[in-house]
């Protein structure tokens, strides 16, 4: 019961914060709302008893991705803080089309899929040892290949971004 009430509170908070990301007129505020929204999603994982996923969400999205967004804003933004920008640009109709289309597709997919375990009441707990076994033993090669791909992308990005004198 208490969990259900908390679930609704967090769901409402996520919706409000996400609306803040879209409707806020200052890009800094958008970024900060985004952190709150992603942290709310992390809290949702705790309700689903996936603490590991929740912590990964906090670490990757809260601590890394949004910090990179804020860092990019710090380095590039010429306006004064609190500067308000107009919300709509020339791409407005396309944005509407893409947004509505994505929503329709997602709804269709979610309602059309038979989710495993949707008929049982209690949540199945997945132990962390099972996750690591799957990741490092059963699917070890894809994991290593994906990490190598990320490393190559990282080195490539550094080489592209780095310009030394005389190059």
């Amino acid at each position, binding site marked *: 019961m208490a969990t259900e009430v908390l679930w609704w509170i967090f769901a409402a908070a996520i919706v409000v914060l996400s609306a803040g990301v879209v409707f806020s007129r200052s890009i800094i505020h958008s970024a900060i709302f985004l952190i709150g929204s992603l942290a709310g999603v992390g809290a949702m994982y705790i309700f689903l008893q996936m603490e590991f996923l929740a912590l990964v969400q906090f670490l990757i999205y809260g601590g890394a991705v949004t910090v990179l967004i804020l860092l990019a804003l710090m380095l590039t933004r010429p306006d004064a803080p609190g500067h308000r920008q107009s919300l709509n640009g020339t791409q407005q109709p396309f944005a509407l089309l893409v947004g509505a289309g994505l929503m329709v597709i997602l709804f269709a997919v979610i309602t059309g899929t038979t989710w495993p375990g949707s008929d049982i009441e209690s949540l199945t707990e997945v132990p962390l*040892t099972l996750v690591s076994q799957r990741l490092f033993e059963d699917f070890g090669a894809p994991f290593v290949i994906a990490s190598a791909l990320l490393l190559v992308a990282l080195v490539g990005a550094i080489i592209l971004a780095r310009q030394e004198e005389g190059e």
Partner: protein
Amino acid sequence: MMLFADPLFGLPSWTDAIIRVVLVVLAMTIVVMYLTYGERKVVARFQQRLGPTETGPGGLIQAFADAFKLVLKEDIRPTNADRWVFELAPYATFVPVFMVLLALPFAHDWGVRDLGLGLFYVFAILGLNIVGIMMAGLGSGNKYALLGGIRAAAQMISYEIPLVISLLCVAMITSADTGNEIGTLNLNVIAALQEDRPYVLLQPLAFLIFFTAMLSELHRAPFDIPVAESEIVGGYFVEYSGIRWSMFQLSEYASMWGFSVFGSVVFLGGWAFPFGADAHWSVQLATTMVKSLSFIVLIFWVRTTVPRLRIDQLMSFCWKVLLPMSIVQMLMNGVILAYDWPQELLTLTSGAGAALLVAIIIKRAVRRPSKDLVGTYKTLGAPAQ
């Protein structure tokens, strides 16, 4: 998320949780107050001064006087500041630090929550600390604050990687101790596993990397470039005054204490070494406190001894020295654990690595610069005056 063994006095679990949170908050407040006093005293002794002496016997109530003064000060908000970002930033900095304190075991079964993923929880939540600092830097409407925020973000993102890998090394070697070949991330269990010997003996290199990265995450000297007074006036909190400024100080000292307790649990055996899991809780609590306080004195000692690094030295030290060393430590652990070689080998290899790291640090510290200061400015593209 698990409870610790049984609720205090048989109370319902939520009342028990509230009591535990209140106890931790009280302990944190007192520790932070006396840390500011302790820092002034210790640093004063290192610099052949006396430190606070006037307020109370030996200056003991100086911290309370300071807190009183800060609360009474006017709370100034610059007109140029982004109002909500500016006002919420101190809280956004403090909340993660406070949440970390909730997962730390101070004695056997003593803490707010006994998390199965405690080790991972601590560094996942500490990563959120940057957000508040960047909010302060962006919201103040001040170039120095912005510079401090950028420096803090760059530094904390970089040093988080060696920090996490050094903790991962400890999580790896717990698998040899738990008995079922599966390691643990539970801080309480990690402390209990070190009943016979602390993990710093098995992993001196990981401990050195952890301590260095910890100094950097805490913005303590020699890594205090985000708050460097002589360069950018005070960094991201330059526009804050009164109660909001003291929130930043509170979170800085609270995270210093939190990190020290965390480090003493992971590397020094926490409450379990050397008195064992069966000792009285007061002995265990005292053990944790003594270990964490010696950590803190070590931080003060480093602060008074080593001069501040430049930002390019700081970054190259992280990416070219600490990161490779931590990866080497992880690989060595992996090989030794995979073949079930004796644990003395862990000590040996890691000790050799630690000696190498110390040698590298000394070599970098004593080497003569290849260019003079003007030459350095020319390379960096700045106009030489």
